[in-house]
């Protein structure tokens, strides 16, 4: 998600093509071509400009609903409901790929969480992440916490620092056992203050109560797409 104000003017984007399975968009105001994954203007009058990233989440509707009681949902357009595919993930995975990186240890259609910290990119293979969550890591000196939500599908990435002190987090063991039956019990504990934290990254009880961790933008993507736009990316291993 991007802000679409450039040089003080709000641009309106439309789908304009495809570049190795990442779409191209153009803006109605200048006709400039933009790459979706990077938010960069690659050709036209605004070439070289970059859209600013808006922090967004990929969550299940169920998770988001409990977090956002007054939230609004994009209504389906009646004319196109038969085009909407709730099974898009396995369906898209079947499509052919046009670029591949055979020398890397991941397969083109492997799903990764990609993030960039001050120019350093890292990809977290989804399977490894989901098995290990919460994942503690460090990229370019920044301590990170990647967590899979109580629903087993939503994810978020935080800076694992409480009041500028590095902290470690783990899932409270009873919540792990009950995850399938009672999702409300899902709780993280930190080793620094021994406080309890929810999936939004906020301490709900303990000495840190009321504090929230800083968020890191992260993208769920296919390996080939992430690698194509982040040639220097490292891959998380453990």
């Amino acid at each position, binding site marked *: 998600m991007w802000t679409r104000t450039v040089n003080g003017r709000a641009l309106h984007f439309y789908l304009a093509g495809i570049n190795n399975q990442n779409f191209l968009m153009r803006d109605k105001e200048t006709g400039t071509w933009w790459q979706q994954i990077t938010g960069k203007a690659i*050709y*036209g009058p605004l070439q070289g400009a970059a859209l600013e990233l808006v922090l967004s989440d990929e*969550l*299940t*509707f169920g998770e988001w*609903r409990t977090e956002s009681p007054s*939230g609004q*949902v994009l*209504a389906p357009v009646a004319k196109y409901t038969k085009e909407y595919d709730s099974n898009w993930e396995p369906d898209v995975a079947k499509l052919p790929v046009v670029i591949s990186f055979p020398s890397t240890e991941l397969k083109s259609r492997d799903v990764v969480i990609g993030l960039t910290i001050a120019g350093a990119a890292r990809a977290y293979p989804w399977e490894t992440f989901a098995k290990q969550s919460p994942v503690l890591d460090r990229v370019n000196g920044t301590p990170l916490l990647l967590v899979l939500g109580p629903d087993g599908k939503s994810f978020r990435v935080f800076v694992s620092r409480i009041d500028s002190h590095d902290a470690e987090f783990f899932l409270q063991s009873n919540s792990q056992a009950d995850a399938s039956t009672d999702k409300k019990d899902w709780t993280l504990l930190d080793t620094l203050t021994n406080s309890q934290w929810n999936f939004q990254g906020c301490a709900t009880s303990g000495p840190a109560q009321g504090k929230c961790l800083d968020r890191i933008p992260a993208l769920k993507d296919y390996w080939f797409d992430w690698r194509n736009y982040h040639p220097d990316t490292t891959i998380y291993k453990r």
Partner: protein
Amino acid sequence: MDRQQTEPRISRWLWTLFFVCALAAIALFFIPAFIIRPFRHQAPHALLLAMALRQRAPLGTLIATLASFVFAFALWRIVGRWRKALLVLALLVVTFSTVMARLNYFEWMFHPIAGAQFIAQSESKLDPKEMIMAVRLGSDARAYPISQMAYHHVLNDVVAGVPIAVTY
């Protein structure tokens, strides 16, 4: 110089000019369309050429098409039936290219949302397991179901007064 020699020479020139203009109009549409097609690899320099041509295609095809019609009109009076058919056929492809250079056929496959509507989350019939993209700006929280965004791909929205582009 007598007529017998001049006419073939003029007609040769007219044919050459006609084909140059016709091919220009056709290329301006078909080259980018061929390069930017799904499920194929796009090399960086080819993509650049595609964008450059497509950018110039609306005006370029218009000029090339008008010129094609002028030359075809001049040829019409001096050529036989089969060559007239060739002219008509070429003009049909030229006109098609000129129309297509103005239309966004990607939006025929993936229709944009005109005037997006939002509903309270309590009214949504979405399955709790469905994935959504979520944004929170100030006190405004919005969810965009991925099943919908994977079809529309782009949505121009305004959340808490901030114009944003939701892309998937």
